């Protein structure tokens, strides 16, 4: 079973790079949705069947695979420019940095001891590199939608790590985490709508009035 899980994690890592290299917002939204669905399958593969886990899987697939992508696609469709055409850092350098971050997270994860039942799993490096990819997207992109996509990647990274604990985490907390994510994205979506109305674009580099010299 761990082999299938590892293959899913490799797939997830590859998707990170697709997001890092893509300039089309609609593509990025879909990739993150696919990543969410792939991750939703993880609990079912890694652990024995239980009602609690199937709820988590179901919630994950529903929220990250469908509800949030739907919200974001609607936001993208209303935009005049549907591309991240001029990011702060170009796509190729971002990909290179993303590669370095992935290598570093494997090195970092190698230093942390694992519980016996988790030996040989890629969960820790996959989690940290997905998290770093998310941070990278947030800091290198201008468009508000792109930054939300980065935030989703980051959340996915945290979810991957959560797999080591799924049996231990109480249901209430996990459900709460998903709910908070949903509300957070919802609020961000509303703010994006206001940004578009106010500045007639969602380019966050225009948000520079407030600063200290």
């Amino acid at each position, binding site marked *: 079973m761990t082999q299938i899980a590892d293959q899913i994690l490799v797939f997830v890592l590859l998707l990170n790079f697709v997001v890092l290299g893509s300039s089309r917002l609609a593509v990025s939204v879909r990739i993150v949705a696919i990543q969410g669905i792939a991750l939703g399958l993880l609990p079912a593969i890694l652990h024995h069947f239980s009602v609690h886990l199937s709820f988590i899987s179901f919630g994950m697939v529903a929220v990250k695979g469908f509800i949030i992508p739907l919200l974001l696609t609607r936001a993208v469709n209303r935009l005049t420019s549907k591309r991240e055409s001029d990011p702060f850092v170009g796509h190729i350098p971002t990909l290179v940095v993303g590669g370095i971050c992935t290598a570093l997270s494997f090195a970092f994860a190698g230093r*942390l001891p694992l519980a016996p039942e988790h030996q040989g799993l890629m969960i820790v490096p996959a989690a940290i590199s997905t998290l770093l990819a998310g941070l990278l997207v947030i800091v290198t992109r201008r468009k508000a939608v792109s930054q939300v996509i980065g935030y989703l990647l980051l959340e996915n990274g945290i979810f991957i790590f959560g797999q080591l*604990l799924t049996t231990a985490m109480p249901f209430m907390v996990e459900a709460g985490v998903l709910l908070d994510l949903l509300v*957070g994205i919802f609020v*961000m979506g509303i*703010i994006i709508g206001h940004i578009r109305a106010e500045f007639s674009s969602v380019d966050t580099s225009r948000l520079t009035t407030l600063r*200290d010299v």
Partner: protein
Amino acid sequence: MIAALVILPLLGAIIAWLVPDNRLRPWLLPVFGMLHGAITVDLILSPPLPSLQGWIHLDPLGCLALVAISPLFLACSFYAVGYLNYRQERSNRILCMGLLVCLSAMSLTSVAHHLGLLWLALETTTLVMAPLVYFNRNARSLEATWKYMMICSVGIALALLGLFFLAYSMLVAGHEATLLLDQLVSRAGVLSPAWLHAAFVFILVGFGTKVGLAPLHTWKPDAYGEAPGIVGALLSGGLVTCGVLGLMRIYQVCIAAGDTTFYRDALVGLGLLSTILAAVFLVRQADFKRMLAYSSVEHVGVIAIGLGIGKGAIFFTLLHLLANSLTKGVLFLTAGNIHRSYNSKRCDVVHGVLRRLPWTGSLFLAGFFAGTASPPFGMFLSEFGIIAGSFAAGRPVVTTILVVSFAAAYLGMAANVLPMALGERLRESERTLYRDSFLTVAPPLLLTLILLLMGLCFPLPLARLVHNAAFLLGGE
């Protein structure tokens, strides 16, 4: 009783949603603020036993957080009635609902003894504040809201990962993974050190973003500057208290695990950076609300340093947390009045506040002295204690930097505040409808009196509470 503390404000939020009248609705805030205050007093006098398998437990630290939050909210709630009277042009439904939900989440943070639950409550306070920062609905507040939302969401997500690391360190040690504080503290000795270190770093960054420790404070001046005064007061008093409480919970686990050098140094390092950076940016700050934000960065830094020094400084750090909450209330509420009256928050436009608004002006000035730790206010006691504690702990360099940055911050703030308060009234300055009224002056006045009381004759029961809380954090 604890359930009422959390559920009552939520009930209030629902009522606020249902009430159609824009003038009547703000009155819900003081009603629920007083109820909350009454319950808080009752709970502190007779603390209940842990409930829900140890998930909910009001310990002295939680009591202290409630003591910091409840009076601040009560003051803000009365102020809100007066303030919203001047803002009848827009609906205050979301503001009232948001404040009440925030009160509920802050109470939950104080009583949560399961770190996952604590995280949820903290995240809720972050989310619910976003629409309130955007109350003024202009381009500037939109920018502030976006930065606030993005940076704090990322920060709090990192803290969640840190909490997962913490739970996993338990699993690696061969125990069942848990985030129940009491179990973590009692078994801290066996936790895997590598994971505990990683957890601490992530949580420090995460909650550090939330409370605005430098260099993670960048959202703070924008959000504090653009939000209405009352929201600024709750952000810098209430939410900071909750965030610091989150840090203290992790700190409890770390000191129980032994070998605390790494944790202490990290806290002292970030704290020093915050105080230095705040002192630099306090000088020649053109916008008085942003100036208050940097003052908040400074105080959060002082709290981090106090925690890092430990031992004798812990008692005063907790005192500082309490004083910070109330002081920020005075400053932001009066700053809101000044903003209303001058229709500007630029220091070069605002002059002669003492003549134009005698009450607000003198309270703002008092708030300035209280916030820069001048005697006889409460903060003088706490900062003095922290400095003495750091001397006693054999950290002369830290002490020196601390004293120098205090002095710089004092001078920097004085250079802005004194001309604002004293100066001559500018002839061309705009005339607005705002006049000092009972509801906008009495709340900050009351908070100032409490701060004076803290500095002059510290009430004994409160001292005992702070002492008990300090004991939980390894203080003497």
